[in-house]
Structure formats: structure tokens, C-alpha cells
């Protein structure tokens, strides 16, 4: 269960978010939609506890996982190490299996910069899903992927959510993705951004 | 007037500075036909760099070094200035009566392992007591002020330091265990052989003989003043940096003790001395000069 209650979030004088309140139960998937620059990533970062400089409060379980808007890999560690350093429990086999699920087991011993951007994004996905998280934050996880790969990743995510039932918050620009994954959709509009018309998705 | 200028590279803190101050203060340089231009340096090597680099016409050094440089082909000459008056001091309450009592103890030495006083004392210990002072004691080499401090604190049982530090140490409750001149005498050396002196280049002396002579005369005149006239010392008080009257007097008397007789240097005695140094200090000290090269000591008319 994750509870977000942001009275206000501002960067300097510019207020970005106001009165954004919601909670997400385990197994629930909340999609966050809104135009570029509205404050989606900001919201996610507050929810994940990265950004603490806001008025309001946030509660979330311990074991979190996140797919950032950019891959955020350690460029000086191999792809496999990027997983195993974050999830030492996996072991070499678990790591390779996790990489295999996103289709890049063959790149396990390369450095992130030797991967294409889409491949790096998949490493980031694999990292987020490697060990059953209690909360899952995803910031546009399926961009920079071709339709087939994106579809695979989507299916993978769906499976994970169904199995592990984390409380999931994910940002996307694609209505289709949102409708497919989300149990609820939240739209940010306005300046400062507030929640507009929450509706239940399928 | 158009008197020739003599550029002297000097240790600003050295005792040479006292003499130079008296020379300048009493215009002894001009009286002897030259103008002394003093360039202060903060360390001995600095004066040697100045001399080598041609920025100074005269510096102060010991004649062993002059002999060494002569043996290397440098035409340097030496005008006596001061006798060796070093010594090994111990604390008054240390109970150390003779060199053998230092066995197994620490000796602080300011001049490094090639310090002449140290070498003479080693030879003396060997001759008088039949033991190797270097092997039977632990030596601590260090900067003079640190040796000074370590000696007073009792960190070292004995200390060999530059004489003006020795004077201060004696003023603070230490005494000579043995003076170097005693030791030298016992070794059959001439304690009157002045160790320190003004060093000039032979070429300079050849082209400016009157300046070299003038320098020697001015130096002697200054020493006469300092030897006999306590008032001449008052002007030096500040640059001597004595902490109190006892130290001041110790420094004054120490200086007076070091004034050489003025008699011509006994070259045979100097050669014996050099050979002993060569034996004890090795090439590190004397370089190729295992015997006294010709013409180290400048003979003036």
C-alpha cells in the first residue's frame, strides 16, 4: 500500500504540483498521464522518496523498485553486475535468467555503453523486476523500443504484476499502454498540476 | 670613490654575520680599500649556489670543502676565519663522565655523519678508549634547532651541534664532555688550524689581490675589536638572538675562543687533519682530496 499526499511541490518560485493525493493498494496499477513537463516524473520521484523537498507526506513499503526515465546504469560495471550488485540474491544464474527475459542475455558481460539505448532500457526493466518488489515505479518504461519488443516487455510486466502484486505507479504517454496495464488512470493537468479526472481503466 | 665591490654571500644567521656587521659598522671595508656588499642567504647550500653561480665573490666554508673542490679542479682559495671549537655536550646531571659512558645511548648530531667534530671524536674514542663510537652509540642526525631541543629534553644523551647552539646549550645546563680541540690535540692535530674561512675564487684573487688582502685585514681588524672591546658587541645583540644575558655572554666568549692566532696555517698539520678526515669520512666528505692539494690556504704577502 502506498499513500501519496502532496499539498504542494515547488521548484524555487515555480509551483509544479498542488493537492495531489491518492493511494495505490498492492496489486493495483496506477497509470499517470499528462503532457510533457507537467510534473509526472516529479510526482514519481516524490512517491519513491528520492525528492523529499515538498509539503505533504508519503508512505510506502520498504522494498521498492524503479525504472527511471533514463536507464541509469553504472557504466563501469557489466550488464550482469548492474543487476547482481543491486540484487546480490540473484546469483549468476538468476541474473542471466533475468536478462534472458528481456532478451539480452548475450550482452551480460558487456558494459552498458556497448548496448543500444533500447537494450539499456531493457536492462533497467530487468533490474526493476528481478526481485519481487512491494512497490514498483516506472517512468515511461517502454519507450525507445520497437513495437514487438515493447509488446514483449509489456507482457512481461503484466505477468510480474499478476504474480508479485506490487503497488505500481507508472508514467506513460500511451493511452493504449495505460489501458492495458492500469487498474486506474490519473491525469495531471494545469499549472500547478493537479489531478483532473480519475477514471477506472480496464 | 671608486672602490672595488666585494659581493659576499652569507648566512644571515651565521656568526660570520657578526663580523661582517662590525666591518660594515666601522667602515673597515672602505678603510681597507673595498666595499663589502652583503647578500643574505638562509642556508649554507644557498651560499654555495651563489658562489658557484657567480653571484657571490666570497662565501664562508670549511677548508676541507675547499680542498675537495680544488681536487675537482676548482681554483678556490681559503682565508682563515675561525677555529673549530665544537664539542660534545651532555647534561650536567646526566652522570656521564667520559666517552665510554655513552655506549648504547643516543647522540644527536647537527652536522650529519660527516660533521668534523663528530669524526674527530670518533678517532679520539678509537685511540683513547679503543672503541668505535659510531658502532656503539645510536646517532640521531637532525637540524641544529632540533638537536638543540632533543639534547635539552634528554631525548639524546649527548649532542654535537654548531657552536652557537652549543653555547646556548651550555648556558642551559649542559657542559662539554670533551671539546674537539682537546680531542684534536690528543690525536696529534694542530687545534690552531682554522676550520672555517672565507672562500674566494683563485682567478678573482689574481685579478683583485688588493681586495683579498683588504678582506683579510678587515676581518682581522674586526676580530681585534670583538676580542677586546665589549662595547663592540652591544651593536650585535639583536642579530645574536640570545635569550638572556648568560646566553649572550656564552656566545661572546665562544666567539672569542674561536678567533685564530693569525699565524700562517701549518700545512703539514692541515694535511694530517685532512688525511684523518679522508679516512673517517671517506670520499663522501673529501671527494678526491685524500691529501692536501697545493694552494688551499691563501698566503698573503
Amino acid at each position, binding site marked *: 500500500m502506498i499513500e501519496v499526499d502532496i499539498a504542494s511541490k515547488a521548484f524555487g518560485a515555480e509551483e509544479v504540483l498542488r493537492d495531489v493525493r491518492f493511494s495505490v493498494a498492492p496489486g493495483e496499477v496506477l497509470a499517470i498521464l499528462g503532457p510533457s513537463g507537467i510534473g509526472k516524473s516529479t510526482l514519481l520521484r516524490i512517491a519513491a522518496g528520492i525528492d523529499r523537498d515538498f509539503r505533504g507526506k508519503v508512505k510506502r513499503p520498504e522494498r521498492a523498485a524503479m525504472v527511471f526515465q533514463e536507464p541509469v546504469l553504472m557504466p563501469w560495471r557489466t550488464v550482469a553486475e548492474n543487476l547482481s550488485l543491486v540484487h546480490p540474491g540473484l546469483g549468476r544464474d538468476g541474473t542471466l535468467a533475468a536478462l534472458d527475459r528481456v532478451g539480452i542475455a548475450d550482452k551480460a558481460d558487456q558494459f552498458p555503453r556497448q548496448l543500444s539505448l533500447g537494450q539499456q532500457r531493457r536492462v533497467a526493466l530487468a533490474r526493476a523486476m528481478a526481485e519481487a518488489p512491494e512497490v514498483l515505479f516506472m517512468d515511461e518504461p517502454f519507450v525507445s523500443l520497437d513495437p514487438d519488443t515493447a509488446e514483449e516487455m509489456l507482457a512481461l510486466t503484466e505477468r510480474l504484476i499478476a504474480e508479485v502484486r506490487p503497488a505500481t505507479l507508472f508514467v506513460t504517454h500511451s493511452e493504449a499502454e495505460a489501458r492495458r496495464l492500469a487498474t486506474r488512470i490519473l491525469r495531471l493537468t494545469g499549472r500547478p498540476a493537479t489531478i483532473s479526472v480519475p477514471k477506472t481503466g480496464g | 670613490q671608486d672602490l672595488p665591490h666585494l659581493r659576499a654571500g652569507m*648566512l*644571515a*644567521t651565521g656568526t660570520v654575520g657578526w663580523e661582517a656587521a662590525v666591518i660594515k659598522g666601522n667602515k673597515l671595508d672602505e678603510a681597507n680599500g673595498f666595499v663589502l656588499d652583503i*647578500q*643574505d*642567504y*638562509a*642556508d649554507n*647550500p*644557498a651560499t654555495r*649556489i*651563489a658562489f*658557484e*653561480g*657567480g*653571484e657571490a665573490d666570497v662565501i664562508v666554508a670549511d677548508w676541507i670543502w675547499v680542498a675537495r673542490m680544488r681536487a675537482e679542479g676548482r681554483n678556490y682559495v681559503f682565508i682563515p676565519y675561525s677555529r673549530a671549537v665544537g664539542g660534545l655536550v651532555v647534561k650536567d646531571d646526566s652522570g656521564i663522565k667520559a666517552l665510554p659512558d655513552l655506549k648504547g645511548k643516543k647522540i644527536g648530531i647537527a652536522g650529519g655523519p660527516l660533521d668534523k667534530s663528530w669524526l674527530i671524536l670518533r678517532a679520539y674514542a678509537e685511540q683513547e678508549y679503543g672503541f668505535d663510537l659510531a658502532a656503539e652509540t645510536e646517532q640521531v642526525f637532525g*637540524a*641544529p*634547532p632540533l638537536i*638543540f*631541543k632533543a639534547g635539552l629534553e634528554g631525548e639524546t644523551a649527548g649532542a654535537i651541534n654548531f657552536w652557537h647552539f652549543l653555547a646556548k646549550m651550555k648556558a642551559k645546563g649542559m657542559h662539554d664532555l670533551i671539546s674537539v680541540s682537546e680531542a684534536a690535540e690528543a690525536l696529534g692535530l694542530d687545534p690552531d688550524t682554522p676550520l672555517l674561512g672565507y672562500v674566494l675564487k683563485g682567478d678573482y684573487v689574481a685579478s683583485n689581490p688588493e681586495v683579498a688582502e683588504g678582506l683579510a685585514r678587515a676581518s682581522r681588524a674586526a676580530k681585534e675589536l670583538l676580542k677586546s672591546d665589549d662595547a663592540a658587541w652591544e651593536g650585535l645583540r639583536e642579530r645574536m*638572538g640570545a635569550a638572556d644575558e648568560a646566553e649572550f655572554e656564552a656566545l661572546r666568549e665562544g666567539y672569542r675562543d674561536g678567533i685564530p692566532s693569525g699565524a700562517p696555517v701549518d700545512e703539514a698539520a692541515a694535511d694530517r687533519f685532512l688525511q684523518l678526515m679522508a679516512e673517517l669520512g671517506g670520499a663522501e666528505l673529501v671527494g678526491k682530496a685524500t691529501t692536501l692539494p697545493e694552494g688551499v690556504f691563501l698566503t698573503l704577502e
Partner: protein
Amino acid sequence: MNDALTHPAAIRVLSVLALVVLWIAAAAVTADPLILPQPWSLLAPFAQEVETGRLPWHLWKTLTRVIWAFVLAMSLGVVLGLLMGRLPAVDRWLDPWLVVFLNLPALVLIVLCYLWIGLNETAAIAAVTLNKVPNVTTIIREGARALDPGLSEMAQVFRMPAGRRLRHVVLPQLAPFIAGAARSGIAVIWKIVLVVEFLGRSNGIGFQIHLHFQQFAVGMVLIYSLSFIVVMLLVEWLVLQPFERRVRHWRTA
């Protein structure tokens, strides 16, 4: 906590005060003014050194040397470091030289400079510069090796001219390295200037420090050392830190 107490300037003053208190305590424990005098006992001799004009004069001499050597060493070092960091061919050739000059004792370089160039200001500054350049080069080279390839490619595609590329793409990435090299550099330079001064100059803080050390006048040694440190603190507060804050602004904005 009180607001006044968390203000940067207040902390700065408090921090310096704490250091002085430490000094006082150390001096009290040592209980030997010859070894470590109390700070207040230095005030009178300090005032005297200032009044006679000795301290300002020596300080000025030293500062001139430090500034010259700093400017020379930093510019040469940055250029060399960039070249070696970016061009492996140059690096392979110059690397052994760098190691040699980096580890050549200051003394050797200083003496050689004095003997070759003469006992003059040029030799002194050359000696310090030569001593320091390898240091700067080493640090900048690491920075040059760590440059972001993405930005270089961007600059290349858009054909940014070399000067602009250097100024806006390369130097901002080197900034932390330059800052590190400059700070630690000015300190090293000043330490070498001290040696240079005592080996062959007749003025400057280094000359005075060595002179007083020979006399075992620790108090005077401290007075002269601290006078330079005070200048460095002022430079740090009035020049370096405000400048750095501006250059680093983008990180915290």
C-alpha cells in the same frame, strides 16, 4: 539552532576560532613558548614586523613569485594535461617524462635552475613552475580522459569551432579537476617557493622562515607562515569560493 549560527559566514568565523582554541590548548599542553607559543604572545612581534614593513615586504615578494608560478604552471599544465589525456600518442611519448619530472626532487630542479639561469627572479620562478607543471598535468590528464564522449560528438556534428568547444564543452567538464589542481597547486607552489627562497633568494617568506628556524625562533616562523595563510584564506573567501559558486551553479540549481 539559531539562524545566526548556521549562516555560512558565522560558521567560517567559528571554525577559525575553533582552530585558534585548539592552538591555545596545544600551546598550554606543550607549556613551552619556545616550541609552541600562545597566539597572543605573537601579537606584539607581529605588530612590530608589520610596522617595520619587513613582513609586508617579504610577503609581497613571495606573493609575486607564487602568482607568477601559479599562472605559468596552471596554463602549461592544463594544456599538457589536455593533450596527454586526449591524444594517446602524445601520452605514450610524454608519460615517462612526466613521471621523471613529477618525482625529481624540488631541490635538484631548483639548484639546476639557479646554476643555469643564474640566481635571479627568473630562475626562481622557472624552478617553481617546472616543479609544479607535472602535478597539474597529472590531474588534468585524468580529467581529460574522463570527458563525456557524447558531448564531443555533438560538438563535432554541429561543427563547433575549437575555441568555443574548449570553453563551453571541455573546460566545464574539467572544472572540478582544475579546481582541485589549482587549490592543491597553489599550496604546493607556495611550499616550493619557500624552498626556492631559502636556497637562493634574499627575501620572501621562505627566506624569513628559514632564517628564524635557524635561530629556533618558532614564534617568528609561525608569524610568517600565518601571514601567508591569512592571505590564502582571504583569496579563498573573496575570490575562489564566489567564483566556484558561480561555475558550479548548474549542479545545484
